Structure formats: C-alpha cells, structure tokens
C-alpha cells in the first residue's frame, strides 16, 4: 500500500494491528535484502515527500520522510551546506530510510552519525497513533530523546512521516592524503595518531595497504593541518578522482563479495580481527568500522565479540539470511529491555515481520 496522508497511514496501521497483519515500512525499498526473508505487506512511504522547511541560517531542515535523499543532498549543496553524517544509498533511497537504517558515512568518526543529526520526527506508532518526538531546533532536551531511538530502528517501532535534521556548512576545501601502510596494525596506528592529533581529521580509512586521511575546512586551515599530517609519515595527496573513488569505495565496499559484514569495533582492536584472515576487509572510521567478506557467520561473530565489538550481516544470499540473524545477538537483560521498548510502541507486533529475529 502507499498511503498519502498521516490519517490514511494511521488507519492502515490500526487496522493491521486489529486484524493481525504485519507491515513493513519502506522508503525506497533499497535495503529490502537486509535481514531474514519474509512474507509481508509493504507500506511505501514515498508519498510523504518534499522539503517542508529549510532555513540555512538556522542549520535545520524538515522534510517528508519519503523525500529522495538525492533531492535533499542537492538542495543543501545549493546553499553550501551538507548532511554531515554522509547518508548514502542506492538510487531511490529516501531520507527517512537512511535515518531509520542509521546510515552514516566516513565522516561519522569526526562529525557523528545519523543519530546525532536527527533532531525531531513525526510518526505513526504500531498503535495507529500519530505523535511527535524531539523538536525543530538544534538544541533541545525536553522529554525523552526519541529521535535517538528512531535512528537505526529499521522501522520496528513506528513509521516516520517527517524528519527534522541538523545541517552544517559544507567545507570549502577538502584534501585526502594517502600513506602506504605495511599491515592492518600499521594502518590502525597511523589513523589513531592522526585522529588524536590537532589535524582534526575528518575521515580515516584503509584499503589494501593504502591508508587515507581526509582534511576539510577553510583553505588556510587545511594547509596548516596538512603540514601536521605530512610530518607524521610520507604521504601523497590523492587527485580529486582518486579521493572520490577511495571514499565511495568505503560506502559500497567489496561489491563482488556474496557475503558482507559490517563490524563495529573499538578502533584499536580492528587489526586483531583483520589478522585472522577471515576474508577481504576494508577499514573506515580509523578502524572502528570494519567491512569484512566472509561466509562463516560463527567465526565473524566470535571475532567481533572477542575484539569487544559486534557484527551486522548486510549482504548475503537468501539461504544464509534465513538462518543467520542480521543484527548481532545482544546479551539478555538488554535484549529483554529492547523487546519491552518495541512492545511499548508496537504492542500488537505490526512491525515484527521476522526480518530481525531476536536471537540466532
């Protein structure tokens, strides 16, 4: 179904709750193959489209959740601004989908994730009731911070109809410096040194022995900080094309691998996962995000846990997705707590589609 108003959406959800049907909220539907295969009825949110309010000097943008991400990116770029968390996705991705999936790019390490930039939202909960969370100003502590729950909720609590995001000025200059690093440990060490320096590194990633550090800002500032980095190790600046290829490669990494994991780790522990040689890998966020191609779920999850992190399955054939949970299993009390939160917003389980089962 494709509701065109909040009332219609609320009615559809209430009706589904009463009749025992399950609904899956979809923006562009570009991430449908994440999670377990399931038979569900789709609620397409694309009618909730369009920018509702955008005043660049306020650093705030409000848009329908179904607004194409590309449209928003183009609009803020035209005002020399940006969504600093670097949301991204396949063609057709929506802003609501990117936020609900908690999509953040390489700049997350310096400027925060989707969670840090979602200021407010309007939504319909599993109770079929329209409500708001957060607000439309950059600084607010009134009531619970429900936007944090919304970002990364994968539509399991409520269907967002409108989002309010913080926007920031687009840095006028950008340069990426690259160093050759011998191994994963060397890459992590260089990135830690750079991220802990006064160079204010915006992004730090490593691919096949090339470790790249991105600087952003005003011209004189970038020049001064570049000198700091060049004093750390031999580095060369990447051309604009090279830099673009490097960073976009970290958005859609290892495209030929049939199975792909996204590990979230303490950055200093990334190398110990890489040296297990479970498969080809890519490091982002100074090592705090590790993309890993490996078909052995148990080994990946064990390695992530041993290093103090967790692993999400983001790409796999249907047969594997049937048996391996996409989200890393959590320890009980936390899982029980999460379950109670889901029931608070969705007591009838309208959004419990089986896509993200609680345990393996």
């Amino acid at each position, binding site marked *: 179904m494709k509701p065109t108003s909040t009332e219609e959406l609320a009615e559809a959800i209430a009706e589904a709750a009463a009749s025992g049907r399950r609904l899956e909220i979809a923006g562009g539907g570009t991430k449908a193959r994440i999670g377990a295969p399931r038979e569900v009825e789709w609620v397409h949110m694309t009618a909730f489209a369009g920018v509702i309010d955008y005043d660049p000097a*306020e650093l705030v943008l409000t848009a329908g959740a179904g607004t194409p991400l590309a449209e928003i990116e183009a609009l803020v770029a035209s005002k020399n601004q940006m969504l600093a968390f670097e949301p991204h996705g396949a063609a057709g991705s929506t802003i609501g989908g990117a936020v609900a999936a908690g999509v953040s790019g390489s700049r997350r390490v310096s400027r925060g994730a989707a969670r840090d930039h979602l200021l407010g939202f309007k939504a319909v909960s599993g109770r079929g009731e329209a409500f708001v969370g957060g607000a439309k100003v950059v600084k607010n502590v009134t009531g619970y911070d429900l936007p944090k729950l919304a970002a990364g909720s994968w539509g399991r609590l409520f269907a967002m109809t409108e989002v309010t995001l913080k926007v920031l000025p687009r840095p006028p200059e950008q340069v990426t410096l690259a160093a050759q690093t011998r191994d994963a440990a060397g890459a992590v060490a260089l990135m830690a040194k750079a991220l*802990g320096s006064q160079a204010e590194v915006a992004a730090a990633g490593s691919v096949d022995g090339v470790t790249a550090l991105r600087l952003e800002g005003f011209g004189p500032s970038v020049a001064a900080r570049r000198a700091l980095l060049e004093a750390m190790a031999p580095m060369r600046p990447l051309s604009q094309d090279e830099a673009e290829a490097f960073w976009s490669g970290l958005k859609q990494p290892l495209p030929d691998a049939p199975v792909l994991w996204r590990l979230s780790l303490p950055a200093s522990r990334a190398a110990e996962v890489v040296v297990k040689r479970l498969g080809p890998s890519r490091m982002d966020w100074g090592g705090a995000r590790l993309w890993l191609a490996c078909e052995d779920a148990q080994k990946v999850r064990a390695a992530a846990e041993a290093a103090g992190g967790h692993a999400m399955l983001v790409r796999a054939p249907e047969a594997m997705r049937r048996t391996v949970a996409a989200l890393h299993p959590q320890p009980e009390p936390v899982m029980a707590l999460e379950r109670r939160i889901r029931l608070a917003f969705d007591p009838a*389980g309208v959004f419990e589609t089986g896509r993200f089962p609680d345990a393996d």
Partner: protein
Amino acid sequence: MLKMPPVDGRVLARRAEIARALAAIVPDGVIADKDALRVYESDGLTAYRQPPMLAVLPRTTQEVSQILAWCHREGVKVVPRGSGTSLSGGALPLEDAVLLGMARFNRVLEIDYADRVAVVQPGVTNLAVTQAVEAEDFYYAPDPSSQIACSIGGNVAENSGGVHCLKYGLTTNNVLGVEMVLMDGQVVRLGGRTLDAQGLDLLGVVVGSEGLLGVVTEVTVRILRKPETARAVLIGFPSVEEAGRTVAEVIAAGIIPAGMEMMDKPAIHAAEAFVGAGYPLDVEALLIVELDGPGAECDHLIGEVEAIGRRNGSTTCRVSGSEAERLAFWAGRKAAFPAVGRISPDYYCMDGTIPRRRLPEVLQRMEALSATHGLKVANVFHAGDGNLHPLILYDANKDGELQRAEAFGADILRLCVEVGGVLTGEHGVGVEKRDLMPAMFSETDLKHQQRVKCAFDPELLLNPGKVFPVLHRCAELGRMHVHGGKTAFPELPRF
C-alpha cells in the same frame, strides 16, 4: 503550586526498618539523621525544598543493584542524585523516597588515548575528566558552566550542554557507553567503545532521561585533542537585532564557531560590575565569538567575523591577544548568573530554545511581559544554537514575587514553544517545567514517551514526579484499543 506524588504513609511508617535494610547493604553509607538530611533538601533549583526520607551513599555497582532491588521489592521510591546542581529540580527529594547519592563513585577508571576514550565513574566532576587527560593535551568537550561541581552521571541524566556545544555537541554526542542499574536491580551495559549501537540505540534514550530510567554506574566518554589555539572576539552592537543578524551571517558564511554567546545590556552591566572583564558598557548587545583550531584558521576566521560584525553596525570589537585575555572575556559570561545574583536578591533562570530568526520578536515580547509581571529580566543567550537564558530578577522575601517570577517564566517558555522552539535547551524538565510539557507535546506524544519509562521501570519507583505532568499507571498506558473486538497476534509473547 507544584504537586508531587502522594506520600505513602505505609512507607514512612517503615523508615527505621528501611534504614536498617539499607545499612545492611552499605554499613557506613546511610544517613537517617534529620539535620544531616537537610544537606540534600534541594538542588540548583532552590525554590523547592524537601528533605528525603533517608539518604544512602553506595560505593559499588553491586551495592546500587542491591539497594534498587530491595527498594523495588518493597515498593520504596528512589531519587538518584549526582552533585545536585540541576537547575530544573531533577534531584529534588521526595518525603517518602530514598535519596541515592552517587558522590562516592569518584574514580577515573581508565584512559585510552589510542581510542580516545575515558571510562569514569558517574560521580567524577565534568572538569575532572578534562583534568585527567589534559597532561596529554586532551579534553572532554561538553562544558556546562557548573563544570567544577557537576558530575558526569548528572550530565548523562540531563544531557548537559555548555558554551561549546554548537561545534562539539551535547553530552549525548560525546558519550559512547554506560553501565546502568535498572530499578529491579538488573545491571545492563548500553553502548561501549564502539561507535554504532548493536540494536536499538537505548543509550541515546537513557542520556537526557533525567534519572527516570536507571542509575548510571559507569560512563565511557569520548575525549578530544585540544585545539592548537583558541581566540575570542568581543563585538558590541547598538541593538540586539544587529547582533542577531551578525550571528546568522557568521553561520551563513560557513563558520561554526567553538562558542557564540550574546548578552543584553542588563547582563553586560551585571557581569562587568562583578568580574571587570573589560566589557563595553555603552552597547545594547555584546557577542563573544570563539574560534579554535590551527593558528592560521583562527586568524583567518577572526578576520571574517570582524568584517561581518562591521557590516552589521558593530561599534566595538576586541580580539583576545593572549590566553589570559580570552579567559577574561569568558569569565564575565560564565559568571553571568552569580553576577545577576549580586544586583538582585534572587533570580530565576529560564532555558528555552527558539529558531534564531525569531529572536528580535521574542526579546520584544519578553520586554512586554516584563512590564506586565512587573519584574526585570537580563538575557544571556547561546546565540549560535538559539538557546535563551533569560534571568528573571525578583525578591523571594517580597510577598508574591516568587509566584510572579514563575508565572513570568512560564509565559516566556510558552512564547518559545509558540515561535517553534522548546521548553528547555539544556537544563532539563525536572519538576520546574513538568507542568508546561502539554504546551509542547500532545497527550498522545507524552504517552508514547511514558511507555518508554514503563519499559525500564514499570512500577514508576525511580524519580517519580519529574518530567511528566500526569503519571499514568503503566497498565493503563499499555492498553490497546482493539478494533472489532479481536485480539491481535494471540501467539506473540507479552512482557
């Protein structure tokens, strides 16, 4: 008058027994003496006072867990407290509740410069985190003005801000994980040293939950490398409008200063009389703009900011020439509250946020309200992010002035909401703004928030009477209107 939850006479009657049970858990940590308990009777919102039934000061997570489990079993309410600096009454005790003081959790547990995190106990002060890492040239970014006293645990509860949060974020953007005890005594870890949450971002909703969801016993925060230089510019304007336009143009020029503060004339004069920061006294509005980063960046941006100020009619402009001078510029601003305290017997600090473009209109209407209520107001303002701190001047010894100050404050906050803003930008709802919540949220909105509370503390024993104007029982909130008399998903387990 503020209405708190009804006092449970049965609990009060068991006071001695409860004290013994708590002493069995923390032998040297129970305060039952009525005079000693007066220390805890209020927090930073001193208009409200109520000594707790008992206070307990645990040292370990296990003790916190045992205390909460015991109180949970026995139906005894608990009010957690950090350093007691809340400006919204978040730590206001209840007559029939145990006050759980976290001051003994005062150790820095671990500092990891490679991952740039510090693990600290919640009673560590905000400033002590920075002091623990400054030898290596690192710092903890959120810096509420009370940072010498306020605790990290309290910062987590209130999602505290500070003058640098426009660029560096609030507490929520700088905390990576917590260990927390739920009201039933269960210990959970949310977040950790990773950047992404494992499932739902429960940490995100715990930060800023004002002590209603659990008691935090350990906090992992991000630490940052200190910028190479920081310099401040002091710019005076003949009107608030011109200062406001300057703020908007600075941001439109792509500059996010480390701090951007505005003060109006009454606040400038009070601060200057108090600390002698060298503020110009012949201006209507003063901006303090701080730029940080490499020296080259500061020099470049200071030039830009000065030029924007001049274009908008600034009459004075001074750039800090030394670290001492930069700190002096800030000393006036950071002492603005006590400075106002010198010119008025009492003051009442408000904390609304507005869309910045509405500032001139809001200040004008505030002046009108000031006349209506017959009370003066001084304004300090986190200008970059639209967070207003009107200070209402009154004298509590004069009959009815406190009530008038509160009525004036409520009018200001309603005005903030009316122009598209919020009741509180950084001080929290607590008891102070609790009854104003319906100005910003519908009954349905509030019920969705309260059900989060129910997921953590279904018996509503932790810090009751705060944040929510009406305390619905969780069973009542859980009800679902069922269409057509059918029960949905009979096979689903219910919790």
